């Protein structure tokens, strides 16, 4: 007969069975989307036998996600690795002395010195770009310049994600660096006049444009590609191809100081920064371009990027102006 005690024991056993005891592990905090990063982790586990214990950043928690968690845990870090989808916040954490300097990464393979920290605290991996995404059922015009979409006929029909978080904040910071204060201020004024809508994340912008709620959005190229793969009615525009091209954002990876599993962390760092892994990242759609010299990009897209050190300074200045519209 059904017995209460046996139920309690069963619950306890099931709870205990949920706890796992793995000796060789590496703890990774990542803001790279789970749908992509989990594939890389699985591959790493298969190759090395080291179990990856991941903590992902979600669209919902990006406001104060892993960056703040790492900062708070700085005296006793739980993470070994921080794999970030952009460089600005990694640089910020590096400035605060949170990452370990390592000397076993070959820096000569990088396309430029923008892609790694001169003090060897973080390294770039995989690049995406900021692109215009349009609902092809609603917009027939094939605009090639960013200025072409910032016109009155698209008033209240353009969406961008929250300019203080994620890659949108990096993009605005980069524009501030590139344009300077006055031109950036003009851009902000333009955005204000067009009543641009700020949504909670790039993926939300992508979905809203695909739904036809907004005609045009600015997102990351991986969001745009995932929408096209899903058969959504959108078209990607790599803007400004006749001048400097699109703004490109690369991923970054770093080992934390006092990382609890430093040996395993080193193995993961070497694995992730290999050309093979980057090819895999490009293949699964996590990134679209390589940061390494020898890997040719299938899309010949012109683009520019900046040193994260400059971005960090520009971010603080861009916020002051962005506050007038958001």
């Amino acid at each position: 007969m059904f017995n209460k005690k046996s139920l309690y024991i069963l619950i306890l056993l099931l709870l205990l069975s949920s706890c796992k005891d793995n000796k060789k592990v590496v703890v990774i905090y990542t803001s790279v989307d789970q749908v992509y990063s989990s594939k890389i982790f699985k591959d790493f586990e298969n190759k090395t036998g080291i179990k990856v214990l991941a903590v992902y950043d979600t669209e919902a928690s990006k406001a104060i996600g892993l960056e703040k968690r790492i900062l708070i845990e700085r005296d006793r870090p739980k993470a070994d690795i921080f794999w970030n989808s952009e460089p600005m916040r990694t640089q910020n954490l590096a400035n605060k002395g949170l990452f370990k300097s390592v000397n076993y990464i070959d820096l000569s393979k990088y396309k430029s010195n923008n892609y790694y920290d001169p003090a060897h605290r973080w390294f770039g991996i995989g690049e995406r770009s900021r692109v215009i995404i349009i609902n092809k059922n609603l917009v027939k015009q094939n605009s090639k310049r960013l200025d072409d979409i910032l016109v009155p006929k698209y008033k209240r029909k353009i969406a961008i994600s929250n300019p203080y978080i994620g890659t949108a904040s990096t993009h605005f910071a980069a524009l501030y660096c590139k344009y300077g204060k006055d031109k950036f201020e003009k851009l902000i004024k333009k955005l204000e006049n067009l009543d641009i809508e700020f949504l909670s994340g790039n993926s939300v912008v992508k979905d809203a444009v695909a739904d036809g709620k907004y005609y045009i959005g600015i997102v990351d190229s991986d969001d745009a590609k995932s929408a096209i793969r899903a058969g959504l009615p959108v078209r990607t525009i790599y803007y400004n191809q006749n001048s400097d091209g699109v703004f490109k954002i690369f991923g970054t990876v770093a080992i934390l100081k006092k990382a609890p599993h430093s040996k395993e962390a080193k193995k993961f760092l070497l694995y992730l920064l290999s050309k093979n892994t980057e090819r895999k990242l490009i293949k699964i759609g996590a990134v679209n371009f390589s940061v390494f010299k020898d890997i040719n990009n299938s899309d010949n897209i012109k683009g520019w990027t900046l040193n994260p050190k400059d971005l960090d300074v520009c971010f603080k200045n861009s916020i002051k102006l962005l506050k007038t519209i958001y």
Partner: protein
Amino acid sequence: MMYKKILYLLVVLMFMPIFIYLYNIFLSFAGFKFNIELFYSKTIINSLTLSIFGALTSLLLGLINLFIFYIIKKNYNRYLFVALLFSLFIIEPVILLSALNNIAIFKQLSPFTQTIIIETLHLFPLNAIVLIYIFNIINLNSVILAISLSSLFSTIRYILLPQIKYKLLLLYIFTFILIFTSQDVASILGYRTYAEELLTQITLLNNLKDIIASTIPLAIFILLFFIISKYIFTEDFFYTKRAIKSYILVKCLYCNYIKYTIISLLFIYLTFLFITFFGKIDSSNIYNLAMDNIDITKQTFLLSIFVSFLTIIVSLIANYLLIKHRVLRTFLYILIIFYLLIPHSVVAMILIKIFNYINISNIDFFIYLLGYIFVLFPIANILLIILNINLFKDDFLYFMDTSLFNRVRYIYLPKYKKESIIILAILTLFAINELDISILLIPPGFETTIIKIYNLLHYGDISTVYFLSFIQLVYIMLILLLVAKIWRREDD
């Protein structure tokens, strides 16, 4: 008397800018940064409007469903009806939004209306379930007598409302706070709320002290709530007599038509959601989906029940310890509201910070459980009040020579069994759907269904998202079986 209360509130509201100004000076002295603009942000108006209307529509729909509950004659059908309500409550607002986006008319609505609809559809079942219990406290004799002597309106106005008005108000405030502090759906739809604004400001501040300081405007609401609660938590409120079920509404002439219409609508709504979920699951891959997610499903279910059970124990102990301390009790309620109003992610940050000073290895899971208790504790306490589980009124037991264990074992548990189970069920649902705190405290390598749903929602793996949403519905069915079994056993 009522006018005086309103006047009192208005005076407090008038003094609020001065209060904020003084607070700001105080914070500057203490070395905090506080963005005063935050309080004057239009997002406060947005959030207030959203919460006022959302809570109102949830309560109204809840009342309609309460009405349906009472006109269902057979007990077992009532169980099924409550089961239906629970099923609707389990569906995460973001999933609901994703399903409703398949309806063309819905997509034409403004972000404000869409948010109201989503929040209402999510919260009305909870309102209905809680209302069903609130109505248990009505003194049946007085209502039957009144209804035989006067009109239904007079009975409601003079007999029914005086008995339940405080609890209705509390339920309204509870729903209001739930909407006020949630930001997911609104921000996805482009309707900017105060919760989102606060989180954005927090992002720009790197200092924990500043993060805490930025939540100061919420203190205003706590102050307001304190004033309101002064009138709510009266002796009368705590000592309301528990009575048998009320059948006040059975006299209604068109009850059957209304009943079948509403139940049909609820079934259509649930069927629509089921079809949407199933339509998006890759049926050829269903075995792999099940195998891939079996661990996460087991983990989430057990964890949710476990933390809910722990929270009830903690809440009961807190209430028990405060039996004799009125001031401390009031303090507890202020604390409860404070918890509810501060974004959960901030609470998570504070928890990590505190436990980072304690040098114990493998403390992650403990912090994680604690985070859940932090989130569920206020909800448990509010439910304890609303469902009338109240150890204060059993003061006489102090004079009996019995141990606390025996009192719990032989008196409190049998007496409050049904209510405890309903609280456990509601808390488990909250725990299953908790995202804000769990995403920040989750131990590395651990995952729950809701976290996975959020992580995969926007990136093409829709099949897994809807499969997991379906699994969420299975959870609730399991919980309901337990609830239904106990109700049925009691009725037999």
